[in-house]
């Protein structure tokens, strides 16, 4: 469950997954760097794979927005739409910065 409050995005995550979350989010930060590099090279195949992975994994960890970002990014890469890819990359960066996790 996600909600916005005072500029923060509050996400409620299963406490059983607590030890996995830092690693998962660190990997998304690495994804941003990889997407930037791929965008420069017009490497849509790589972006499509990253989008596909985020789409598949985000919700399982409790981050529905990451699934949504991944879904749009995968579609944009298939359509060679650099603008949408850039928008979603920025959205992911913003999401990760504003994220506040509540374990329950």
């Amino acid at each position, binding site marked *: 469950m996600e909600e916005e409050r005072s500029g923060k995005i509050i996400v409620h995550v299963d406490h059983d997954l607590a030890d*996995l979350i830092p690693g998962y989010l660190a990997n998304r930060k690495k994804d941003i760097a990889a997407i930037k590099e791929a965008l420069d090279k017009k490497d849509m195949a790589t972006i499509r794979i990253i989008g596909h992975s985020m789409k598949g*994994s985000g919700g399982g960890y409790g981050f529905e927005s990451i699934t949504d970002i991944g879904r749009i990014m995968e579609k944009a890469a298939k359509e060679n739409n650099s603008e949408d890819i850039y928008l979603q990359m920025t959205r992911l960066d913003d999401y990760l910065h504003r994220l506040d996790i509540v374990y329950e």
Partner: protein
Amino acid sequence: MTGPLKEEKKVSVNSSSGTTILCIDDDHDILTLLEKILIGAGYAVITASNGKQGLRETLTRKPDLILLDIVMPDMDGYEVCKKIKDKEETKNIPIIFITAKKEDEDEAKGLKIGAVDYIRKPFYPPIIKSRIRTQLDLKLKTDMLERLVSIDGLTNIYNRRKFDETLKLEWKRAMRNNSPLSLIMSDIDHFKGYNDHYGHTTGDDCLRRVSQEMKNLLQRPADLLARYGGEEFAVILPETDYNGAIYISTILLNGIEDLNISYPHSPIAGHVTISIGVVTSIPGKNCDTPLQLIEIADSMLYVAKQNGRNQIQGKDLSFTGK
């Protein structure tokens, strides 16, 4: 990019259920999450990060269930599934596709090639656990039924149906490997007289004791003992040459004598004895069909009976031409 993995194998063995699940996915984050959920649910978990590695783990570890991604580099999940379903030794392992492919036609394709279920990513952990539990329960019941239809009710050893199935399988395997396959056919001597004299209840008890003793004497897991007919028992000995088959036949012959089941009216001895016919061949090279192998073993059993019973007669085809 951090999701997709290079080849990596990890085995988590702390299982409380004794059930092993193999997860095949090229996304490290998915494997980590599945591992966490499944270990928490009491399963042992093996992970594989690509199709080829997944196939190797399937063959060597024989997991109880496989969770399989579809979109993977080199070999996709559909191909992995087909290969698993094509192999006799792995075809009954239930496969659940777990994928970010959301179209109905993708699901239909997955189910058509043999998957038992299809879960869309992202997945909700309690749902994945429930659907795995359902498939494992079904597998348990199917295995139980399979076992029940393979077992002879009186003697509790394998029945003729299982014998026929296994002989065909071992025949094919021996052909592939160019290895010897031996077959023992044995018969309780003068069993009709035993039944007539002591009655059917005692006769049944004799069948049970003989079959259990034979089962105890056969030590190798690959050897298969079955009740072939009334008082006739068959033993399939894969990868066994003629000398080995004669050695095992001798153990069986002596073992039944040593049981010392009283049979004072026996024309042979004061106790129950058996006759044995044995044959060894290289399937496809010097014997054409499993049926032919049975016929030759049977003919050797006939010779053993004609020669006075309580003995072994055999034929080694493995050194002869066709």
